[in-house]
């Protein structure tokens, strides 16, 4: 399934649940009106009895998506939040990016020198026969 199809379906399922809860509230209010409440009292009482609508939606969504998708979507949420925070503090972002860049750059430079000198065989014929010569007292 393509990503956009998945997103569309997810949105539809969310709207479906919202409509289901609206219909629940309407029926509960209607029952109370039938028992003699006026419309506004009935509407408020139905809402109060229902409890936290957002929490119910959230719990139902969690069930529908399953653990893994829920985890993935919370990781996405964290990433979006992080990007927004970075965009909001450009000074901090600049310093962080520069220090990361110079750190990574310096490491890469040192490693390429060490790699060429110490790790790779020397670029001479028969490198095993190369000797270290040193002058001095032993």
């Amino acid at each position, binding site marked *: 399934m393509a990503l956009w199809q998945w997103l569309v379906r997810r949105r539809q399922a969310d709207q*479906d*649940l919202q*409509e*289901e*809860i609206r*219909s*629940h509230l*309407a*029926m*509960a209010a*209607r029952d109370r009106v039938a028992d003699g409440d006026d419309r506004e009292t009935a509407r408020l009482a139905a809402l109060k009895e*229902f*409890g*936290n609508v*957002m*929490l*119910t*939606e*959230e*719990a*139902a969504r*969690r*069930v*529908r998506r399953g653990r893994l998708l829920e985890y993935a979507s*919370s990781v996405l*949420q*964290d990433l979006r*939040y992080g990007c927004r925070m970075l965009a909001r503090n450009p000074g901090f972002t600049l310093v962080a990016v520069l220090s990361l860049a110079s750190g990574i750059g310096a490491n890469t430079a040192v490693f390429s020198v060490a790699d060429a000198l110490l790790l790779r065989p020397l670029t001479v014929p028969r490198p095993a026969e190369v000797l270290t010569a040193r002058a001095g007292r032993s």
Partner: protein
Amino acid sequence: MAHPSPRPAETRIDLLQGTLDMLILRTLQWGAQHGYAIGQTIRAQSSEVLRVETGSLYPALQRLEKRGWVSAEWRQTEANQRAKYYRLTPKGKKQLSHQQARWGEMVAAIGRIMNPELADK
């Protein structure tokens, strides 16, 4: 959206999970029902003892639908209100009879422990 959206603590599903699923399936045995009616039926049938929290009911319905034990469809009520009706699937019927058997065993087993003097008679 300036704030990270709230992450509510786990809602109270665990409390009655298996039992609630069974009660919902049982309620649907009498025919397709919408969520509000399922809650009302469980309340009335238990002489007002069991009140199903909507925060548990709707997640449970999603779970049952996901497992293929119920199927859902939008219809009009007699009062001309659009509502989502849930219906037992053949798989759900099988699950219900399985759960009913297990429930019977469990009640009997707990009864033997709580009232040993009544057992073996």
